[in-house]
């Protein structure tokens, strides 16, 4: 027997059938084919499967798919609008913040969750906010710098608006 789940993914209404023990990660990848969400460990230790669930940063491998009934899910596929990259996506490209790129979707979602809550983080706050995301290629240096770059842009934009 499977459960019929109705929810919103990246703003679109979706429905799918899942085994109750299936994870949200598996539903997104195997049922909806949103393969931007990656599985690095399946135990919540690498952050590659990060999504926003009702606005909250979550490892989709640690959510049972039926839990998201009537919820809103945002994946890396939902960060950009049709015409523009999200500033974080642009900054990651500019700043060479990815090498192999497997962890990139999770970092982008985690960084968005950080900036949504705290648009002006310092380096330490950035490092702790992405500590749930493992990257083995970059040593994090360019990821941290890229997130700080976006934060600085946001800060100067808000100053401009303030003036």
């Amino acid at each position: 027997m499977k459960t019929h789940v109705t929810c919103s993914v990246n703003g679109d209404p979706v429905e799918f059938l899942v085994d109750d023990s299936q994870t949200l990660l598996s539903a997104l990848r195997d049922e909806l084919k949103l393969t931007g969400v990656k599985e690095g460990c399946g135990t919540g230790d690498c952050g590659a499967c990060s999504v926003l669930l009702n606005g909250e940063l979550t490892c989709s491998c640690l959510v049972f798919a039926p839990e998201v009934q009537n919820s809103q899910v945002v994946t890396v596929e939902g960060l950009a609008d049709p015409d523009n990259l999200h500033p974080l996506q642009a900054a990651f490209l500019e700043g060479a913040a990815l090498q192999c790129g497997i962890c990139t979707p999770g970092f982008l979602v985690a960084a968005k969750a950080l900036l949504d809550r705290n648009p002006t983080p310092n380096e330490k706050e950035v490092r702790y906010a992405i500590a749930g995301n493992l990257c083995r290629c970059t040593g994090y240096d360019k990821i941290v710098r890229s997130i700080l770059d976006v934060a600085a842009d946001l800060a100067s934009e808000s100053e401009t608006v303030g003036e």
Partner: protein
Amino acid sequence: MTSTSFKHIGQRSIRPDGLDKVTGKARFGADYYLPGMLVGVVVRSPHPHATIKSIDTTAARAISGVKAVITAQDFPEISHEEAMSGESVVDFRDLSHNVMARDKVLYIGHPVAAIAATSQQAADAAAQALQVVYEIHPHVLNVDEAMASDAPILHSDLDPDGGEPTNIAKRHVFNRGDTKQGFARADVVIEREFTTKQVHQGYIEPHAVVADTGEDGRSVVWCSSQGHFLVRDQTAKVLGWERSRLKVIPAEIGGGFGGKTTIYLEPLAVLLSAKSGRPVKMVMSRDEVFMATGPGPGSRVRVKIGATSDGKITAAEVWMAFDAGAFKGSPVGAACQTVLAPYEIHDVSITGLDVVINTPKVAAYRAPGAPIGAFAAESVLDEIAEALSMDPIDLRYQNAVEEGSESTYGPTFKLIGFKETLEAIKEHPHYKATLGPNQGRGVACGFWFNAGLGSSATVSIHEDGTASVLTGSPDIGGSRASMALMAAEVLGIDETRIRPSIVDTDSIGFTDVTGGSRVTFATGMAVIEACGEIVEDLRGRAAMIWGAEPDDVEWQSGQAQHSDGSKPPLSLAEIAGSAAKTGGPIAATASLTARGVGPAFSTQVCDVEVDPDTGLVDILRYTTAQDAGRAIHPSYVEGQMQGGVVQGIGWALNEEYVYDDSGRMENPMFLDYRMPVASDLPMIDTVIVEVPNPGHPYGVRGVGEVGIVPPLAAIANAINGATDVRLRDLPMSPPRVVDALSSELNGATGTPAG
């Protein structure tokens, strides 16, 4: 020639594959879904050392939804045959037995069967139902146990000394000069012993493959690897197939670091697909990655170095035993050659042992073997500098190899940039910054050969003046961007008009693995050569249009120019637009074995703070200088340097395979296999040194690997600076540091000289 004379090389362009990777579109190994696809699982040994008495697949096959079950009986018997595969010698019999155990299982996680079914549940149930009877043998988990006189023997045919079988698969010996005399000339001689544990490459993407076998018996394989030609060739060998029966399509690869230069799942998926007639997808779980794919070796190492009071190294002796895991082939040979390579030493004696143990077979890991040797040698050098009251960089500089120096492994160096990296660190503000209480600073150096090997490239110019650059080198760290920049430099068009692609084994000439720091160097050379042919072709066509001789046409800034200026220049796009009239399609292919490899050196400095109560080591500041030859895309060169350093930091401080007495890895998950997280680290400052490699048209050396060589010793030396205690056993985790600090307090002297 300085970087400023290039128009494209040295630019920090946006990588061509970047958009797909920041939007989630890029397809990695596990991202392929085919109609009718089955799920494949591997049944693995629960014992570290046992004979397989029988395997009964009846109950597994009876489970509804199970479409195929395979064991070693379904693979051909292969005899020992050593051949170059990828960058190293592979014994295909060992390879075959590692992907599927035949008579014996040699580690927990060793595959004994594989199953394809219509659902994960059915496949898992069948795995549970498979009946395997084992006769269990005692096991060995490290080189000391494996070399003990009463050790259980893993293989009956390993006897390097021609006697009874042992667990020592090979003995490497490099002797030169007379170390006895050398040590006699020394004023200070220091000998120390070191140990290191197995560590994993730690790529975030688990191994994944989809195989689809057609009615004609040919298979298409999608997988992420560091070399799809290697996957094709090794899989064909293990299956006894002709290579042309397999087409391997490279997926994007989510990290490899050497660990994806061999095969695990691919032949199983192909065979399951062939038996079931359906596509089969296999994806490892993280604990399978840890328990059944390549760790780097654990080791025991002794290093003895002598020097005169004015800091000239007079002699060195090194003894190293590396574990190879279940089958021979640790990187101890490379460790022997690299351990002292940065220094000019005439009297050396180096011995390396390759030792088999009951753990997963080790795989290449970034500058394989070199970090372990450097950990030992660079720690001892630091002690010598301390004993002589010399600046540690001065000591190294005084003995540093340069152009014309004879290396400890034999050959004479051509133009190299080692001394320049030492100078860069010595002059860096970091080296002069003041330190606080419980803080210390350490330096260390590293060497790596880099590799050439075979590469192919095909370049096509399209009618609108854009271009395609096809290669067979999987891009792990932005190499497509470098290919586009080098092609742009030769062709003289903007890199955004060039689309670099990595294509399947049927669509390009053979190309060796993405490894050995070789892609920008060697595959880049093929791209440059093919683009050079294109330019010749374009000149000829311009000459045709002008009614001139090709020799009258020069190619400058993406334009054909008449040498006497009598004609208005013709752009690449203009010539391409009339290609049909001037000889048809414009394309060129280069396939080559890249010669002219230039070795890489790195010098690094690290500041740590040690919590004397808890033993916690905090990396405060880190700077790495590395000779890149020429940085084609500086951002990705820096990225390689930073990534290598951080892997080294993890290896130094916390990463280790922990086995229990039964041979089971206790920490096969990222929670307990402690790779560095962002909050553990500072920024990693980089200094790119450019001493051009004379063997490459643009001076490129490889940059991928050498960065991981110095950190283990740099951190150990920094800890000594902070605490006056030398740690010689990795990882330098808090319990080890606390132990060392307390035994120092109790008056012990640390590890005695062996």
